[in-house]
């Protein structure tokens, strides 16, 4: 009877092997999916007990901090209220997380890599998260919010550090108060307000027709391919036929033969539409992608709260090589092109930084409860978009815009600003989407306002950009 006993033991070994396989399945192979399962509330319950790290601005202001609640759990307070609502977001057990609170959740809850946490599990898991120091400047943010609110229009502004990609200001108007947002009625009401959509981050989530600011991208492609130079002679006549339809200049003005610098300074539509058409769809597409269009921005911000810029046909991104795309009109910021303020600020940052596009980031560093810096965000190159020479030529051309062109309202004393205005026409009776984007050697800014009757970029958006530049010490 020993053979069957031995076989029986073999069967038991086999059965236990199945148990090991299934335990491995849940603990290792499918663990990620189980943790992400919507029925799984363990993480939220666990994290309630963790003292989330404090978030501070670059100048040391507390933007979010943990407050003890009943039991051994913690809630969240946002001392600056509406000021940083979109950049920082919120974190509540009942409604989830948004903004930096979401994208930097691992740091704020003190979660480390697998190897370190294996070590920590022996020593006991920490119940305190890391503090985060952001790149945001509270004065610039205040100026930006005040200026946007003062304009009386919805809109958004992004200011980037040209040399690091750090986000200095990110404002979206109207804003909301993240304090007490876990009250269901309050949150539901904010969600219902479709007219104002206060929870929407207009700086990253909403694409607008960029208008003439787009001519900078077209100019960059034109110069960088070597097909044009700043002094190349082009025809600025009114009513050129672009994609089979005549295109007009602002005020139907006829310029005759001009050079490219003059064409940018005076924002001549027909010149840049023709340049775009001559460069062609595939070349334009190549430069758009290098500038960061057609992809979600590589910023430490939730994917769900960012939108890729580019031409959109029925909501979907359509490449410039598509037959449905009017390359000439896209080259002057029309033709169903949509760009976020973050995207246009990135364009300015790239040119200001010698053609190198950097990944924008909000976090500067993470500091653990013992005061050690555990993570520092270094400038990260996203792409070499244009040559250093092209960037220099473009800068000269854009300085001309502020010195004597459409953007004089952004001129500062002591530092030369390079910029470009934009006024996208939403209808034929003067309802506009004004834009301004600019940079100094240190700061790049893009700002836009929604549905401004009769407003042009130079008169409405440029002064806001100027105020923010000043607040940042430019």
């Amino acid at each position: 009877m020993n053979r069957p006993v031995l076989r029986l033991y073999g069967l038991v070994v086999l059965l236990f092997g199945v148990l090991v396989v299934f335990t491995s399945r849940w603990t290792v192979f499918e663990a990620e999916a189980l943790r992400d399962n919507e029925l799984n509330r363990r993480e939220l319950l666990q994290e309630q007990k963790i003292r989330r790290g404090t978030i501070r601005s670059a100048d040391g202001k507390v933007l979010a901090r943990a407050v003890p609640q009943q039991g051994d759990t913690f809630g969240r307070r946002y001392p600056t209220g509406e000021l940083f609502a979109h950049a920082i977001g919120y974190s509540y057990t009942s409604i989830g997380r948004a903004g930096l609170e979401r994208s930097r959740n691992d740091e704020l809850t003190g979660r480390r890599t697998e190897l370190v946490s294996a070590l920590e599990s022996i020593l006991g898991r920490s119940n305190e998260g890391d503090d985060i120091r952001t790149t945001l400047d509270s004065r610039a943010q205040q100026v930006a919010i005040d200026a946007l609110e003062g304009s009386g229009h919805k809109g958004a502004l992004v200011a980037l550090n040209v040399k690091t990609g750090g986000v200095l200001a990110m404002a979206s108007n109207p804003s909301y108060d993240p304090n007490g947002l876990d009250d269901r009625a309050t949150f539901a009401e904010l969600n219902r307000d479709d007219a104002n959509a206060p929870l929407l981050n207009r700086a990253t989530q909403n694409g607008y027709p960029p208008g003439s600011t787009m001519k900078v991208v077209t100019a960059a492609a034109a110069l960088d391919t070597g097909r044009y130079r700043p002094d190349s002679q082009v025809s600025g006549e009114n009513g050129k036929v672009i994609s089979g339809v005549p295109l007009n200049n602002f005020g139907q003005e006829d310029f005759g033969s001009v050079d490219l610098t003059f064409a940018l300074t005076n924002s001549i539509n027909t010149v840049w539409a023709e340049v775009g058409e001559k460069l062609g769809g595939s070349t334009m597409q190549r430069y758009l992608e290098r500038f960061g269009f057609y992809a979600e921005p590589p910023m430490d911000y939730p994917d769900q709260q960012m939108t890729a810029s580019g031409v959109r046909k029925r909501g979907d991104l359509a490449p410039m090589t598509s037959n449905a795309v009017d390359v000439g009109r896209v080259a002057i910021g029309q033709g169903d092109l949509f760009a976020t303020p973050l995207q246009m600020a990135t364009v300015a940052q790239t040119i200001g930084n010698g053609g190198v596009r950097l990944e924008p980031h909000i976090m500067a560093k993470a500091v653990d409860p013992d005061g050690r810096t555990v993570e520092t965000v270094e400038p990260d190159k996203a792409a070499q978009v244009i040559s250093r020479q092209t960037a220099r030529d473009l800068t000269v051309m854009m300085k001309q815009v502020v010195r004597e062109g459409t953007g004089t309202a952004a001129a500062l004393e002591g530092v030369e600003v390079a910029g470009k205005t934009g006024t996208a026409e939403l209808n034929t009776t003067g309802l506009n989407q004004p834009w301004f984007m600019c940079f100094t050697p240190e700061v790049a800014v893009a700002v836009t306002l929604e549905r401004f009757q009769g407003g042009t970029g130079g008169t409405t958006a440029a002064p806001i950009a100027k105020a923010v530049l000043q607040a940042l010490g430019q």
Partner: protein
Amino acid sequence: MSARNRELLALVPASLLLTAGFAAIFIQQSAELSDVSLTYGAGFLALCLCGHFVIRATLPYADPYLFPLVAVLACFGLVVIYRIDETLAREQAQWFVVGLILFAATLVFLRDFRVLERYRYTVAAAGLLLLLLPRVPGIGQQVNGAYLGVGIGPISFQPAEFGKIAIVVFLAAYLRDTRQLLVQGSRRFLGVTIPPLKHFGPLLVVWGGAMVMLVFIRDLGSSLMFFGGFLALLYVATNRLSFVTIGLGLFALGAWFFAGTVGHVQNRIDTWRDPFDRTLYDMQGGSYQIAQSLFAQADGGLFGTGFGQALIDLPNGSSILPAPQTDLIYAVITNELGLAGACGLLLVYLMVAERGFKIAMLAEDSFSKLLAAGLTAVFALQVFVIVGGVTKVIPLTGVTLPFVSYGGSSIVANFVLLALLLLVSDRARRPARAR
């Protein structure tokens, strides 16, 4: 080194494990280490030593590894239960003492265990009675739709834990007599060996019993455990795979039929197939338990969160894992000690099974062989049924994890099982002149 000295030595690591486990929990709870953990460790060691000396006095030749292995399991269980609820751990420690007393009593009063053979039908009747007790009005208790508990006054116990031993004793005695007849009287029909109906009859009764249990007790896990033990014994006795195949076929047929007709069983199978279905998850007695079990295991990962760190209590004081100290204790262990700890635990169980089967192979007479093999098979199957349920290999049912789960009946009954195995072992390993 003699067998008993090896056993004595092997008890030391078990006590150290207990001391270390309690130390880890104390550090986690109060961030300081008191010497209470040492006291607990010493107390546990003293208890085990008592057990050891009883074995030394009564069974000098018995297997030296079984008792220390069980001590490891029991101390592991105590630590985990203490981590879940201190009061329960104190009760479990008391049951541990009761178990040891019954263990010693079995060793002393049942030295010649072969008398059991003579009382086979009495034992069988007692076993069946035990199994049906939970359905007796007034004392039976229903938990999650299954009838597994009996409550008389303040005492409540799970008779199935004792029933499994009785059934194995009966089957071992019965099959010892009839195994030859079952094999020789068989005819081959269409390439399948058919046993003679006359001798197979009582075994069909056992199958019927398992089906009745399925309907009356409404517990798929226990009936799977019992019927599996029966098939294992049948296989060992006859060495005929065809018998096992027929048996499995019959069981599957019955299970399939009752799954469709008994709502409770049907529900268990549905929740097993799709635990994340929203309606099943929200349903009373639905898939919440198995889903939370899987979430807890996922939380554990490779090395676990560490002792005392798993999330068990909700802010409102209730438990996120239903029955963490009994049904889902394996999920708690995996959560806190990870895949590594769970594999270690399974390895200890596998080693117990290995020793048990080894005893069966060393035993000389058929009854001893069948008894040892049957007890070991039922023990191993019980582990498979509950761990398999918790890890979603099979539908989750309410049997205990032997020696580890909280529960008086479980620990006491399994100590009796251990005593029987040691009795068989002592007889098998005794040198010829000492008999």
